[in-house]
Structure formats: structure tokens, C-alpha cells
């Protein structure tokens, strides 16, 4: 599970950036044609994101299905894993497109994209942990709830952890988390947050594309 949570965003990021830079010529060709700008770029984005999502579903689904998933009770947990995986793909390819669009220089764009992934996947957690250690005398449950909301990778991880019912391992914080995320409202809120994470970069993409010179 942790592998998926880390690798899916990485693949989304790298493919997003690579695809954008690779299809620049194509984009220029299309821009001179009677096609709306936002449809060109949103089309490219959904092309990448949907094919990555499909490969995730098939790549994970087929082996698990062969393993007898449909008869096991774990199917809902597995569905949750797939849903968060899908969201992560959508989020990170959108972020990658944004980065690529703002950087003409390929190497810079790649660098920033990988840095973003590294930040959200590893560094964010590190800073988060440091905070928790430094301020351990204060009640931090609200803060940690909020902080995990602002990182799509953390959010997905928690959603899956809670589904797996190993939140007992997380002791008191786990209980707080369970109280929040475990309720229908909490699940809805966190899925809503993931949707916001998809929509915001797409909105920026649309705005930047409207103004950019080619």
C-alpha cells in the first residue's frame, strides 16, 4: 500500500511533465488550427491522466482479481486503494502540467516536478513530525488533522489506514483521526479535499493557458 501511495504520484508527475514537453511541437501545430486553447491542453491532460489511471486499475486489478479478490471481504478496502490511487494520479499529473507550463526549460521543469513530489511524499512528513515533537506539550490533534488535509499523499494514506482498521496502532491520535475520518462526514470531507486538489491545478492550468504566448 505504501508503495502505491508513493509510486503513483511519482509516475503521474514524471509522465505529466514528460508528455507536456514531448508534445510541444504538436501543441504548436494545433494552436494555429481552429481549436480552443483550453480544449487542447485539457485534452492533453485528460489523455495522460486517464491512461495512467487505466493502467493503474488494470495493473493492480488483474493480479488481485486472479488472486480471488471478488470472493474476499477485502474488496472494499481494495476499492478504496484504487480510488485514492486514481485521485493521486489526477492530482499529480495536473500539478506536473502546471509546472511544465510555467517552465520553458525542460531540465528546470523536471527538477521542480520531482522536487514537488519529494516534498509532498517525504519532506512534508518530516516537517510535520518535527512539529509534533517540538510542540508535544500542546494538544495537536486539530493541527495534525488540518496538516494532513493539506497534503494529498498524507490524506490518501490516512484514508486507507483507517479502512484497514489498523488505526489502533496510532493510539490516541488514531482515535481522533478515526473519529473524524471514520464518519461519513469525514470521508466526504477528505474526498472533497482530494477533488479540490484536482480542481485547483486544473483551474490554474486553464488560466495560464489563456494568457501564454507560444
Amino acid at each position, binding site marked *: 500500500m505504501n508503495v502505491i501511495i508513493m509510486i503513483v504520484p511519482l509516475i503521474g508527475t514524471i509522465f505529466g511533465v514528460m508528455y507536456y514537453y514531448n*508534445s*510541444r*511541437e*504538436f501543441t*504548436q*501545430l*494545433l*494552436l*494555429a*488550427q*481552429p*481549436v*480552443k*486553447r483550453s480544449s487542447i491542453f485539457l485534452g492533453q491532460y485528460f489523455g495522460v491522466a486517464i491512461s495512467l489511471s487505466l493502467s493503474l486499475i488494470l495493473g493492480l486489478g488483474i493480479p488481485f482479481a486472479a488472486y480471488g479478490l471478488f470472493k474476499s471481504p477485502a474488496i472494499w478496502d481494495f476499492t478504496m486503494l484504487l480510488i485514492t490511487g486514481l485521485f493521486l494520479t489526477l492530482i499529480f499529473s495536473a500539478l506536473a502540467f502546471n509546472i511544465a507550463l510555467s517552465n520553458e526549460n525542460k531540465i528546470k521543469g523536471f527538477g521542480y516536478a520531482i522536487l514537488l513530489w519529494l516534498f509532498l511524499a517525504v519532506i512534508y512528513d518530516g516537517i510535520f513530525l518535527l512539529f509534533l515533537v517540538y510542540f508535544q506539550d500542546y494538544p495537536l490533534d486539530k493541527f495534525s488533522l488540518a496538516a494532513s488535509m493539506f497534503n494529498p499523499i498524507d490524506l490518501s494514506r490516512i484514508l486507507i489506514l483507517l479502512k484497514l482498521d489498523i488505526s489502533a496502532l496510532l493510539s490516541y491520535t488514531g482515535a481522533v483521526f478515526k473519529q473524524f475520518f471514520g464518519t461519513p462526514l469525514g470521508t466526504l470531507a477528505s474526498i472533497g479535499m482530494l477533488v479540490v486538489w484536482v480542481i485547483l491545478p486544473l483551474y490554474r492550468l486553464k488560466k495560464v493557458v*489563456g*494568457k*501564454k*504566448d*507560444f
Partner: protein
Amino acid sequence: MVSIQNLHKKFGPLKVLNGLELDIKEQGIIAVLGPNGSGKTTLIKSILGMVVPDKGEIIISGNNIKKRWNYRQEIDYLPQIANFPGNLKVQELITMIKDLRGKPAREQELIEYFRLQPFLDKKLNKLSGGTQQKVNLVLCFMFDSQLIILDEPTSGLDPVALLQLRKLIQQEKENGKTILITSHIMNFVEEVADRIVFLLEGKIYFDGTVEEIKTTTGQPDFEHAIAKLLSEDHV
């Protein structure tokens, strides 16, 4: 047909277009000339909506083009550098562009005209520069649009193809099209152009016929007249 008012564009600190005004009403061939970096390509890309101007208006057939895209249906454009997706075959590319426009096209006639049949099944990145330019020309001329914009159409063409291109441009002119050309090959311009628009530092420096350029500068030769225009501060 095309009317441009007070067009400004900056790229960072560099002012490329600086209050440019241009009116094209007539049919025929209009050549946009100017030294490197005088804003020719920027002007053309602004007309196509690929570059968003900082200030000013561009009106094509009565419609302001800002935030619109449908008007490009009526424009044929030949980009300066043939930047094609390399993994497509020539035939695939032509079919795709035809699909996009959804208009009748006369690609077969042009493919024969430029003798491109042997290359139809080749991938675009395997073609030579001149052949790519020919594909570019086919893509540009296969639709019957009223306005044709050619950015350096002569680059990479051999003499035979150049002659063919000249004939094609004359033909289109006789069909009553408006053709906008940029080129650095002066005798090509001299031969085909009805009107010369000379850009310098983002403004129109001279606007008139070939004959007018020659008389104002007092040079019998077109190439020298242009050179004189550049070296002097008159007009």
C-alpha cells in the same frame, strides 16, 4: 479584412511591437519585411492568437479576435519552422488536420503538385528539411481560406520547388485571396508582392508598393532600396 490598432507586445524588457497599426482591406499579396527581431513573426502570431498582445485590437472580418478561436477556421497558416510531431506519418498528419477543420480539402492535388507521393508513408522525423517544408505547404494550402499567412515560405526549398511555390502563390492571388508573406529573399518579394509593409522596432516604418520604395529612396534596385531604408532615418 484585417485591421490592427495600436498593438503593443513586450517579452520581458524587450519591446517587440510598439503601437503597430495596420489595415489590410484589399486582396493580393502583402509582404511584411524587416530586419531580424523587428516583430514580423510576433505580428503574425498575434493575428493567429498564439501570442496574446499586451494592448491593442485585432479585428478580422469585423470580429475582435480576443479570446476567440473560431476565426482561425478562415485562416491558412504556414509556420516559420516546420515543427511536426515526429512519430506521425505524413498521411496521418494530413488526415488529422483535415479532421480538425472539417472542411473539404484538395490535398491530393497538392501532393501531386509537390511530388510528395513517395513520402506519404514515411514518418515526419525521417524527412529532410525541404520535404518537411513541402508537407507544411500542403497543409497550409489545402484549405480554401480567404486569408493565407506565410511565414518564411521559402526556407529549405530547392529551386524547382521555389518556382512551384511562386506559381501557387500567384494562382491563389488570382483566386482573389489575401496573402500575407514574410521573407528575407528580396527578389522573391519583389516579384510577387503588391504591397510592402516594412517593420522596424515594432512599428510600421514604410507602407507602399515596390515602386514607391524605389522612388522614395532613389534606388533603382529593390534590395538596395531596402538597405537604404534601413540605414537612413527618413520617411
